[in-house]
């Protein structure tokens, strides 16, 4: 290893937290819609991009400030998700479309959205003019933006936890996810719940888009760079499980950032960090095919006793 290399572990953990927060924001929406509608919405990538562009329009074209842009991205992307269900996926489901039909429809829908955005905002890279210079927080170099995004992600996780466990609407969401017809039979307005899930899931994607774009740039393919890792987090965490997804998102963030250190030490390209994330995913699925959410003490005991 290189002489005089004194890696700042705290900084690397902070970086991992930042990477993980992004995956969590992008993946929660994906797992929510998957949990209730049972199909992977590939157009989710475009929702991420859409949020980034909306924030740009509000913050830099209308000059209403970056905070207003973030809020607008949250609301507008949420509404886009609701509209997608009302006008596209809802009618398809009512006509009896299968998972395959819905998946292919979402791919096509995503392409339409991507090129529409390219038409509206252009192909050229865009940047938010808002800028908050970094400072040292103890041993860690941070920017207000990075801090606020980590805070936002953690806060959202907490709010979701309360929503799902303490409120009626949360219980209705869980019921709809587990068994839609039973939920409907017991008096839950599943239609409203489905629209709420679309709104929340898409809004979080929009937020993730602003976060990624403020750190890099805004392009029509912004969402695609995150989508693959988001899917990995969803599968790793156990499809439809919000807690599993949160855990998986942060785990992938850590594995990726720690992997970079190993790769650089081995003089390899950091392109392989994707590979490391997926290796973790593959091994996790071999031992827990249902994802992390499927792991219970009973299943571990069963596995141990069957092997022993």
């Amino acid at each position, binding site marked *: 290893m*290189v*002489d*005089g*290399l*004194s*890696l*700042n572990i705290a*900084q*690397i953990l902070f*970086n*991992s937290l*930042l*990477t993980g927060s992004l995956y969590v924001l992008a993946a929660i929406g994906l797992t929510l819609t998957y949990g209730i509608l049972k199909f992977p919405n590939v157009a989710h990538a475009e929702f991420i991009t859409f949020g980034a562009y909306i924030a740009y329009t509000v913050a830099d074209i209308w000059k209403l400030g970056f905070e207003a842009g973030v809020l607008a991205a949250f609301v507008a992307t949420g509404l886009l998700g609701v509209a997608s269900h009302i006008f596209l996926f809802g009618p398809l489901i009512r006509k009896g479309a299968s998972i395959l039909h819905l998946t292919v429809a979402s791919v096509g829908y995503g392409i339409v959205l991507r090129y529409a955005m390219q038409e509206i905002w252009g192909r*050229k*890279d865009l*940047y938010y*003019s808002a*800028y908050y*210079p*970094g400072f*040292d927080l103890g041993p860690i*170099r941070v*920017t207000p933006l*990075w801090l606020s995004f980590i805070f936002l992600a953690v806060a959202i996780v907490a709010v979701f936890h309360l929503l799902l466990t303490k409120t009626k609407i949360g219980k209705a969401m869980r019921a709809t996810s587990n068994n839609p017809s039973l939920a409907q039979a017991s008096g839950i307005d599943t239609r409203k719940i489905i629209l709420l899930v679309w709104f929340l899931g898409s809004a979080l994607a929009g937020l993730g888009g602003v976060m*990624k774009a403020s*750190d*890099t*740039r805004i392009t029509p393919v912004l969402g695609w*760079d995150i989508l693959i890792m988001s899917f990995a987090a969803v599968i790793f965490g156990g499809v439809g499980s919000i807690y599993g997804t949160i855990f998986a998102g942060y785990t992938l963030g850590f594995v990726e*950032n720690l992997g*970079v*250190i190993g790769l*650089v030490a081995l*003089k*390899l*390209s*950091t*392109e392989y*960090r*994707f590979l490391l994330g997926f290796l973790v995913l593959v091994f996790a699925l071999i031992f827990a095919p249902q994802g992390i959410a499927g792991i219970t003490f009973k299943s571990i005991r069963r596995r141990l006793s069957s092997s022993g």
Partner: protein
Amino acid sequence: MGKVCDMRENSDRKGISTAAAAALAVVLLIVGVAAGYFAGSATVTPQTTTLTQTVARTITTTQTVSAAQTVTQTVTQTATVTTTAAAPGGLPEKVKIGVLLPLSGELGSIGVRMLYGAHIAAKIVNDSGGIGGRPVQIIAEDTAAVPDKALDAVKKLVEVQGVQVIVGPATSVEAATIAKYLNDRKVPAISMSATAAALSNLAKQYGDTYFWRVVGSDTIQARALADIMKEKGFKRIVTFVVSNDYGIGMEQMLLAQPGMRDRVVLTIRYDPTKGDYRTELEQVRAANPDVIFYALWVESGKIVFRQALDLGLDKIPTMGGEGMADEAFFADPRAAEYMVKTGLFGTRPTYDPKTYSYQIFYNMHKRLYGDEPSLFADYTYDATMVAILAVGHAGVYDGAKIKNALALTGQYYIGATGMKAMDPSTGDLLSQDYLIWRVELKDGKPTYNFNYGFWSLGTGVVWK
């Protein structure tokens, strides 16, 4: 495409009137010698009797350049009045020079103006009688700077047009793509702007040298960069490169320079699609370097710079190769801020535009097109001139023989962009000069100062 800059910014256009007269005399001399040479080789291989009628005339000219120098040469012009093809061993009625350039697409606007250089070379040669009386014809094909299209275009030139020598292609990826085909069909190509170091291995890879270039390989640039690093006293160097042929090539070339393995303390190859480089940059900081050497792509590079600024790495000096001298980096104000704060500096191929050879090209460009030559038109002119001279040298329109003539042709050709001596085992230019640029603030805006320094094999590093 490698971006080459000339020294037009600091050239003095006014003081050439007396020089122009002398230049003209020397040019006439060069052209005269060249024409005589063509004629000479043309007469060595006599026309066969299949030609129905051949009118030959011999002109003897004497040019007096100075009292001491008198050059006498014989120019034999052979004009055929029949339409039959040329006799075996001779030159065809029209000597076709194929040109591969991006005439559409992203680089189309540059490519169209690069083609001017080829037409200027053909015009100068044709005005003085062509090659042994046979006029030169430029046949251009559009590659759009896309490798697949370049392969289609070169096949069209060789198989449909029967072209035996090619000028181009412009980019290194295109060159790597068509190299095997050139070797298989034994047709040499001379690139004006492909600088990737890996192209030096094409000759070894395919068995023979059918790819040549009149612009310096990045191998020479690496030597310039290593010299500059030593001159600046940098002892702890970190390389931060994009993980592809361009970036890894730069890293490897730099490490191959004498003494550099001890100085480079950390090498990082980053993924251009990721957009999250904080942990890579943290490792750079931990290595405590004197300088960071960057070879980035613009799109991902802007993100690297922005995040380096956010992480507070703006106290460490930065360097780069010619690819880093690109104003597209300034599109992100944070990236530009980082480049200014760290005083990013680096190299770029250059030459002296005050030479007679450059003025001939320049004046003809003004006369024919009414404006200043744009990027790479000069190198395209030289590549075309070398191709034409090699056909004359070979005396026959045959790719393999033209290829054999290229090394010697380049040896004795001093072009608009300098000496064009090339290594027959690699096709590489033997010598290339570099200017040293630096990112500076001018009137509050980030700009490239192309007059920060100079490097050549002869002079070493010179600061201005």
